[in-house]
């Protein structure tokens, strides 16, 4: 994603190289067992792993359950009874770990422009990496997290529901996902769960409209920063139908009167400006906040449809975290 080059249409090879980079992205995790569940309290060795950003945390549970088996005070607990927290906040397992990190770790995003926007503040304070999580195998927080089941049906169902929503936005119907064979539908989940890009691409190509056929709406959700004094576990999410092109009527109401009659490409900047004008007074330049995706600042000029085609999460959505600047 080159922030400075909005005009030339990207070749499909550049989109697929971005997609590959996104799927290859990994996050170093440092996972400790909750002290209250450990025979050695806080002396249990941590589990360290570079986990794909696109993966979901519960896929680690069988390994973690084995790793911590000898330390568990309640050795009868099962992998699907495991849940994760960061600084006391239970982490919703239906979000990919990369999104959870962007939401909660407070790390400054990488950006093409070098250190300009992010001075030395983060470097010396707490280094956010590896991301330090706690795993628990008892005391499920029923008020905050949906329980998992031993067969992984709840996760699979949540994933497919999310895929259907993305499909519905892209096509105006959910017939694409409904028309997938049972094998492909199950295969899509397996491919995403295992972060297997070739298998994912084969099925995803059946689902996605071809590149010359624009999406009806673009599956993007924006996560707003929580006020610092908020105790609420609830994340503020903004979602509204976002078409890939801005209709001429909308353009004529703006400064773009000269462009009347010509549809404009919807960029991440124009979408943010339309949905969150207070946080994004300009559609070109981040002033108060910046959009973050896969740990990187998204160029405001990035066309939303291209962004979804090359850097969506496995369920077809782009989840953008809005991060305050300064």
């Amino acid at each position, binding site marked *: 994603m080159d922030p400075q080059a909005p005009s030339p249409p990207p070749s499909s090879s550049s989109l697929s190289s971005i997609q590959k980079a996104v799927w290859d992205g990994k996050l170093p995790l440092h996972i400790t067992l909750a002290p209250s569940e450990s025979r050695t309290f806080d002396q249990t060795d941590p589990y360290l792993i570079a986990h794909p950003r696109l993966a979901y945390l519960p896929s680690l549970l069988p390994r973690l359950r084995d790793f911590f088996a000898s330390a568990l005070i309640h050795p009868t607990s099962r992998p699907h009874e495991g849940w994760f927290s960061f600084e006391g906040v239970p982490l919703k397992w239906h979000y990919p770990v990369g999104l959870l990190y962007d939401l909660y770790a407070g790390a400054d995003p990488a950006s093409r422009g070098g250190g300009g926007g992010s001075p030395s503040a983060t470097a010396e304070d707490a280094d956010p990496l590896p991301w330090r999580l706690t795993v628990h195998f008892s005391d499920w927080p029923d008020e905050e997290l949906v*329980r998992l089941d031993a067969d992984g049906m709840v996760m699979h*169902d*949540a994933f*497919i*529901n999310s895929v259907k*929503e993305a499909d*519905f936005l892209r096509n105006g119907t959910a017939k694409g996902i409904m028309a997938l064979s049972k094998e492909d539908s199950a295969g899509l989940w397996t491919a995403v769960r295992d972060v297997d890009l070739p298998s994912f691409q084969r099925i995803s190509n059946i689902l996605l409209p071809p590149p010359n056929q624009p999406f009806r709406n673009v599956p993007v959700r924006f996560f707003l920063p929580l006020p610092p004094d908020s105790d609420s576990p609830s994340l503020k999410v903004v*979602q509204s139908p976002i078409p890939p092109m801005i209709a001429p009527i909308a353009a004529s109401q703006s400064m773009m009167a000269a462009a009347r009659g010509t549809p404009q490409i919807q960029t991440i900047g124009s979408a943010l400006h339309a949905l969150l004008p207070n946080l994004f007074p300009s559609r070109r330049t981040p002033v108060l906040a910046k959009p973050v995706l896969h740990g990187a600042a998204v160029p405001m000029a990035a066309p939303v449809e291209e962004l979804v085609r090359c850097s969506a999460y496995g369920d077809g959505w782009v989840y953008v975290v809005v991060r305050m600047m300064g």
Partner: protein
Amino acid sequence: MELSTSSQHPALAIFPLLTDKEFDSACNQFLDRVHVANESLMGRLTCQYAQRAIGPILRITRRISHVSIPAYNSQSSADDPIRERYTEAYEDDPEALIRTPEPSVSLHVVYDVLLSPTYQVPVLYFNLQPTDHPGPLGIDAVYRYLVPSQYREELQSVGVMGGISLGYHPESGTPAFFVHPCNTADVMRQIAGHRRVTPETYLIIWLGLVGNRLGLQLPRNFFATDEMRGNSRS
């Protein structure tokens, strides 16, 4: 009191989908109707409608007392993999084991109807809470206490784990059941037939469709619309 669907009403703009404005108008009219209906008609249902941060929510609460457990136990669930699976999750709960032999429990069910920002159709989120138990109940309890027996098979046969999913309430962010709305538009088109239903009639047809399957039965009179009568006459 009857539902008005006569032709002086404007057509629904994006039927079989519903706009924000139409949903709001539907909920307001529905609430007026509920206030007019006397208590014997509404039984143990209460309704509120409020603007929340994520948009308006129509909340209907229902108290179910004396849920008969023996009636449930008399049905075989051995060939019912979904129910078995979710029953299993509660086997570790000592309270559940103690509670099971009780002849009856009372349940408090909160149904929230809101407009799905993706599908632009109403979507139903709900929770059920036994009055004497601190934690929420699982999906086995939904099938046991809320879904009428004639709908159980139909609801369990679709999707990965049936037509009822587990997710998060959009407003509170807490776990909730919901009915996935991806087929709602098609079904509304089939049932409502054309766009000259009022927003309120749309909502009431939808409540009849989705609510009936989840123990949210509105009084029969609610469904007697002019339009339906007109159709049956013609």
